[in-house]
């Protein structure tokens, strides 16, 4: 009996191992699909192929036979199967309706503006009835106004407040837990702080809406009860466990020998932590902030419930504010499938995906390099 039974003797095993490999690609596939399918719905906006102007060129009904099918389809906003299912008379009727609709368009200087063009998404515009050019997000009005700047500002405002509140706390706790607490204390302290991550964001949103907002208003006495400040603090609660975990991990991965060397030279615990361990782990702290930022800008339920959701451009944190995420959550259900409002919300989703992707990538790379350096691989 020889040793040569060979790999061919186990085709099933070979097959299963190929299968394992294929399944392991699922994470990559999912990232790719998310980008593809969220981006796909937003594609017409990116390429300027949507038109939201109320006054559109009409085609006389008797020209029905002379216009090519694809154009007719686009004109009437039908799908292939719908177009095939309609007879001539119905088509003529639809065209007549279209003309009628055009005649009833509001007499507004902005009525023929395609508000989904990039110029209107990013730059201020003096809309009818306003005395100066403004950034306005107002999709559900006669003229659909899609300026995304108020939403971007809203997201940034809430996230910055959150970071300013969460980072010092989380970092302080990370230093305390990793450097100063005894092993016994650490054993219960770490999971307890991480328990904060187990509180669903809708519960944090609820808490800030019902309890926190009132307490804060009584404390600071500002006008609108729900605002970027309350949303930011609530968001901070969601960010604390993220920043804490990553920072604690980075601090703990600094070799014990560093601390011991410092202590042997006669420095105190805090000197070792502050002057030796923290500088060594500082990239990890940056990574924690980057990932905390990603988490904050992408958080939905907290800001939806606590921010007040008014899309005003203002740098005051005590004004009601509307974030990108909350806008998607609040408005998508009311949009027409495939319409410009629908596509606009997917465009915001794509932006969010790209921004969080980049901040995660940055955080990830920093951590990888840091670990490599501390483990002496580079």
């Amino acid at each position, binding site marked *: 009996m020889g040793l040569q039974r060979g790999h061919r003797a186990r085709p099933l095993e070979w097959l299963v191992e190929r299968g394992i490999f294929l*399944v392991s690609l699922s994470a990559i596939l999912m990232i790719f699909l998310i980008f593809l399918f969220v981006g796909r719905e937003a594609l017409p906006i990116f390429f300027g192929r949507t038109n939201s102007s109320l006054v559109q060129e009409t085609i006389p009904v008797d020209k029905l036979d002379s216009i090519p099918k694809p154009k007719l389809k686009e004109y009437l906003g039908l799908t292939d199967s719908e177009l095939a299912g309609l007879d001539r008379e119905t088509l003529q009727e639809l065209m007549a309706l279209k003309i009628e609709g055009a005649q009833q368009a509001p007499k507004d200087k902005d009525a023929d503006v395609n508000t989904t063009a990039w110029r209107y998404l990013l730059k201020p515009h003096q809309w009818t009835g306003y005395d100066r050019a403004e950034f306005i997000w107002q999709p559900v009005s006669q003229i659909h106004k899609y300026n995304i700047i108020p939403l971007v500002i809203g997201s940034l405002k809430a996230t910055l407040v959150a970071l300013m509140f969460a980072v010092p706390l989380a970092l302080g706790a990370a230093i305390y837990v990793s450097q100063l607490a005894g092993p016994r204390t650490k054993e219960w302290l770490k999971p307890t702080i991480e328990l904060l991550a187990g509180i669903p964001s809708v519960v944090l949103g609820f808490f800030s809406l019902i309890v926190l907002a009132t307490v804060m208003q009584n404390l600071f006495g500002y006008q609108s009860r729900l605002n970027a400040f309350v949303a930011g603090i609530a968001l901070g609660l969601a960010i604390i466990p993220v920043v804490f975990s990553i920072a604690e991990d980075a601090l703990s991965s600094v070799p014990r020998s560093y601390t011991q060397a410092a202590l042997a030279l006669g420095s105190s615990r805090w000197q070792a932590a502050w002057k030796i361990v923290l500088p060594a782990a500082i990239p990890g702290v940056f990574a924690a902030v980057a990932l905390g930022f990603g988490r904050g800008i992408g958080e939905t339920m907290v800001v939806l419930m606590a921010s007040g959701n008014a899309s005003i451009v203002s740098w005051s944190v005590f004004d009601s504010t509307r974030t990108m995420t909350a806008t998607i959550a609040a408005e998508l259900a009311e949009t027409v499938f495939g319409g410009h409002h629908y596509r606009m919300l997917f465009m915001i989703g794509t932006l969010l995906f790209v921004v969080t992707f980049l901040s995660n990538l940055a955080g990830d790379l920093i951590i990888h390099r840091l670990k490599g350096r501390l483990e002496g691989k580079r």
Partner: protein
Amino acid sequence: MPTASSSVPSQGSDRKDLSRPFRKSSLDVASFVFGGLTGLATLLILAILAIILGNIIWHGWAGFSWRFVTSGTSQGMFDVDQAGVLPMILGTTARVMLMTLFVLPIGVITAVYLTEYASSTSLFTRIIRGAVNNLAGVPSIVFGLFGLGFFINFIGGGIDEFLLPNRPEPVWGKPAIFWASLTLAVMTLPVVIVATEESLKAILPGLREASLALGATKLETIVMIVIPQAMPGILTGGILAVSRAAGEVAPILFTGAAYYMASLPRALTDQFMDLGYHVFILSTQSPDIERTRPILYATVLVLLLLTLALNFVAILIRARMRRKMRVAAH
């Protein structure tokens, strides 16, 4: 604690004064401030956690009753004396269980590939890991958009168009518990992968060698030795994924959660009522927030009990596993 100054030769004299006592020369203010500030930050976080939990338990307990968790909303969602959360508990449970069916196998297999097969240094492995980390950071609302764009419009719409072309109403191409579960499965994939990987790495390499030296194939070793050993870790990952998914609302807003349903979901294509979404509705849509406050708090308590209890179990299993690994390593 002896300080440095006592063992350093005093300046201006060549003789080392070894007889000086090892006493603190002065109060170490910096140490005090530093420890105080970081300790204060820690305390503050703990206090916030305690306040949130305390507030919810205190007020939630008042509105909590056996009737509340065993009755539905047929008398109206905002009826303080009649409304219950049974349909929401069932809906949330069903969607996370369905999710587990998808996420556990895929997550575990990916982790097995990463730890047992892939070379840890190759670029390809780095890309997979990067994708896993990135998936963990994708905003939950984007998962919702993805579920709508991919699962419902593309897959569901495709099924309706090609397999069921003669139905007047969409069957699969609309929000449903099945699509919500799939969306959540994509979202929690990193949780399962990371937890499983951690437990696979903690297995002593000696066990793998022992099995291979007996003539077991790699796959036999993985299936019969490695996976059973990693079971606590896999379980932890599963529980954490369930706990995370149970509280998520944003991804299911457009993929399956219903504002109100008269009956429980019966098919995979039905929508469902959800605990987290119900919290959102009660907090923002209530006609009289003061009156409905008791059921709002009670609903939050139920949701919190569900997610935190699961989290707690996962933490316990993990702590036990780590202790066991430490013992085994000696």
